[in-house]
């Protein structure tokens, strides 16, 4: 979790490629206002995130805009992995594997104990490839990212960024080999 002030830029770099970076945002002054996947999709009439996408809050305001993207598209409908959904999707013995939900909850509660699970909603999965099909399907596909690809955003208001570099080993979202991502923040 980190604070990004209005006007600052943030860049996430997929250093070794094929990573999934689960990311969520809050209005730093009023954390009840948070990133909303469905409002983002609805406003741009498109399910994939890329350059030009405005990341919209649950109050229908723009939190940040994606201003550069060398990957091409990012997911916002797949949500974060969790021991609960891993158990549903894969097997009961996956229950004790590390997950983005664990990372999210720990970071939130360490930041401020006023946060709880209720404050989480569907997040962004930068560099993750979740194609939707015309017949209503959705799947987790092999990544389209590569070493050194990055996405860059500019903040429209003071926000908190919550990041989990996905530790998922049950599907190809991290290439079955989670690798480091670089987080850069600067004054534009």
């Amino acid at each position, binding site marked *: 979790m980190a604070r990004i002030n209005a006007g600052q830029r943030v860049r996430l770099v997929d250093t070794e490629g094929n990573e999934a970076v689960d990311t969520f945002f809050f209005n730093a002054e009023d954390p*009840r206002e948070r990133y*909303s*996947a*469905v*409002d983002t*999709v*609805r406003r741009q*009439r*498109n*399910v*994939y995130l890329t350059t030009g996408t405005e990341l919209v809050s*649950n109050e*229908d305001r723009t939190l940040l805009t994606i201003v550069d993207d060398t990957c091409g*598209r990012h997911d916002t*409908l*797949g*949500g*974060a992995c*969790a021991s*609960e*959904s891993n*158990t*549903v*999707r894969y097997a009961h013995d996956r229950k004790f594997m590390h997950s983005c939900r664990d990372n999210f909850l720990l970071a939130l509660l360490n930041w401020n104990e006023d946060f*709880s*699970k*209720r*404050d989480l*909603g*569907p997040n962004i999965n930068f560099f993750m490839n*979740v194609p*939707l*099909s*015309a017949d*209503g*399907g*959705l*799947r*987790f596909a092999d990544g389209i990212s590569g070493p050194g690809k990055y996405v860059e955003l500019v903040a429209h208001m003071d926000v908190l960024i919550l990041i989990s570099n996905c530790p998922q080993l049950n599907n190809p979202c991290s290439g079955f080999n989670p690798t480091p991502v670089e987080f850069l923040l600067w004054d534009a």
Partner: protein
Amino acid sequence: MPSNAFLLEERIPAGCHHALLLKRGYALRLTDLSGDGNVGLLAFNADERSERYNMADTLKAQHTHKLALGNVLYSDMGRPLLSIMGDSFGWHDTICGTTNAAMIEATYGLNDFQLARNGYYRNGRDGFLMELGRWGLGRRDLVPNANFFSTVTVDDEGNIGLSEASYQPGAWVELRAELNVLVILSTAPHPLREGPAAARTSEASRMPKPGLPYRTEARRHEHATATGNHSRRRPLHGPHQRRAAGAPRGYGRQ
């Protein structure tokens, strides 16, 4: 299904909101009387309300972005809250959320309570919040809702659109509670609906008694189709169909 099979029936006018406790094993049938309706739905474990419908987990666990017969609505704790036991419609949206006051005004014009009294144009966000507030919940609990009776398609580039297939007068869907579930409904227009909307009237809260076999209804439905007495998507409960014809008009058709 004879009307006395329902424990409760309620007609929800266009744009309004409603909540009910659905005990485990009970079922809820929603019927879109006008064919132009949209029912936004949120669901919570009534006994532990931090457990709630989770759009992303529902989608990825079933490799789908539509809800239809046989799908379940998963909670964030990996448990089905509601199962779709019957569905004449076929493709319910999960990815567009709901409307807010500014969107409704931009789409339909200003028509507030001072102008229109109870005919004022309502929106999904406010309706959900008014209902969530009644149950001790609030903004933090307003997560992405499902939209029944609205079909949203996605093309190869990811562009989305509201499909004409959404217009199905009499379409119905039946949801069975797998836990004790707090169901919150909004009949505000779908957020992709453009221009003055047609009449929106949805009928909800029709709960068959527990243990009443769903298949009875299904067989009757097939029989009706086979004899040609009803069009495929017409509901069995004729009286409600007739009531719908005289139902008050929704936004844009006053």
